[in-house]
């Protein structure tokens, strides 16, 4: 009997391995931000921040914060040598124009049609979409990052999102703390499972059309 334990770092680690040197990557607020901590040595990705910069660097040293240099979450950041600042139209031109290779977003729900919901719970919480709708519509590859189960025990992976959509049919991959999924042809395809979870556990805990692909395998070293 495998017990589910939330593990955001596993998600971040696995996503970080998707990148190649030179890839332009936008990491959403929250869980996706963790991905930046796990980019493998030797891989140089270019982080884009939709509030107007390319070449996002690490947090500044205490006392070195600049009020004019923040990320999209209003936290102080730095810029790496070779980075650039631009206005919001240019920033979203980059995003919408397909110049961002990977966008990694947190979700409230994601479904087997590649629909994603993460900006609104009607009557309850309406933070707004910010840049998420453009990121999901425009990026070359969209990766949804989410813990696998809600507190209720229900899977975040759905047959059909019930919440208002952030974008329709744009999600390419979903990475949870139990496995790596591709969304294709109206189904989730399990490509990797993260031990101790296995395909049986995942099938049992994910009420969707789910295929375990022939080439799927355990991913052990996360």
């Amino acid at each position, binding site marked *: 009997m495998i017990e589910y334990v939330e593990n955001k770092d596993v998600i971040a680690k696995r996503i970080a391995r998707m990148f190649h040197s030179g890839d332009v990557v936008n990491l959403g607020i929250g869980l996706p931000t963790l991905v930046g901590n796990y980019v493998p040595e030797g891989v140089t990705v270019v982080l884009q921040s939709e509030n107007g910069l390319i070449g996002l660097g690490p947090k500044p040293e205490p006392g070195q914060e600049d009020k*004019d240099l923040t990320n999209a979450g209003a936290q102080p950041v730095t810029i790496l040598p070779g980075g650039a600042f631009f*206005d919001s139209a240019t920033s979203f031109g980059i995003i919408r124009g397909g110049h961002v290779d990977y966008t990694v977003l947190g979700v409230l729900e994601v479904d087997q049609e590649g629909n994603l919901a993460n900006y609104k719970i009607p009557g309850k919480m309406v933070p707004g979409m910010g840049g998420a709708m453009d990121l999901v519509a425009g990026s070359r590859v969209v990766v949804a990052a989410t813990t696998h189960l809600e507190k209720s025990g229900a899977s975040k992976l759905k047959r059909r999102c019930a919440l208002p959509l952030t974008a329709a049919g744009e999600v390419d991959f979903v990475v949870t703390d139990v496995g790596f999924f591709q969304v294709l042809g109206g189904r989730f395809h399990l490509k990797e499972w993260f031990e101790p979870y296995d395909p049986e556990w995942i099938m049992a805990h994910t009420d969707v059309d789910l295929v375990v692909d022939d080439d799927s395998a355990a991913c052990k070293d996360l």
Partner: protein
Amino acid sequence: MVEKPVISAAEAARKVQAGNVVHVGGFLGCGSPDSVIAELAKLGTKDLTLVCNDSAILDAKSGRKTGVAVLVENRQFRKVVVSHIGTNPETQRQMNAGETEVVLVPQGTLAERIRAAGSGLGGILTPTGVGTEVEEGKRKLLVKDKVYLLEEALGGDVALIKAAKADKAGNLRYSKTARNFNPLMATACALVIAEVEELVEIGALDPDDVHTPSIFVDFIVLSPRPEARA
């Protein structure tokens, strides 16, 4: 080049009239014209429509309050057109209570709609929002077999923007991510007021490095960075 009038933040705030559509630069408060906002809050001018990336930060716990949040708190807006209100729970409270109309616009669409207004375009075709609630009430158009939403230009009466530096003609330079929506709003409103931290002589800026050409700016408010004040 003609010099632009340098006015006080209080004079600037008085140029905003009740009922105006006001574009305010800044991203969660980074790059907001804080001195003019403070004076506008003092004046209490009502019934405004805000166009801004977000309704900024109003955090009851930490007491952090940035950008336009004080104007939201003061209920000076009849309507806010923004991409995000998640960091200002008061906006959401007013929305739920029916006190303030909130129009949520995807951030990239908001940027293009403002730019379109400043560029004399009627609107733009964007894929963003297709298949979501955002498409409701909008025209959909097919271009090369792809569906786009027609998003219309969004201009305003007054732009309150923030730059790092101006020359006396009104050429502007922004600093880092404090640029954001400011250069777009500078093009899209009938009256443009630029709050700046530093004012230099005409000729001191390299013409290759001007972010907003002088012709967009009507008034300058000089408000040095906090650490640079006497």
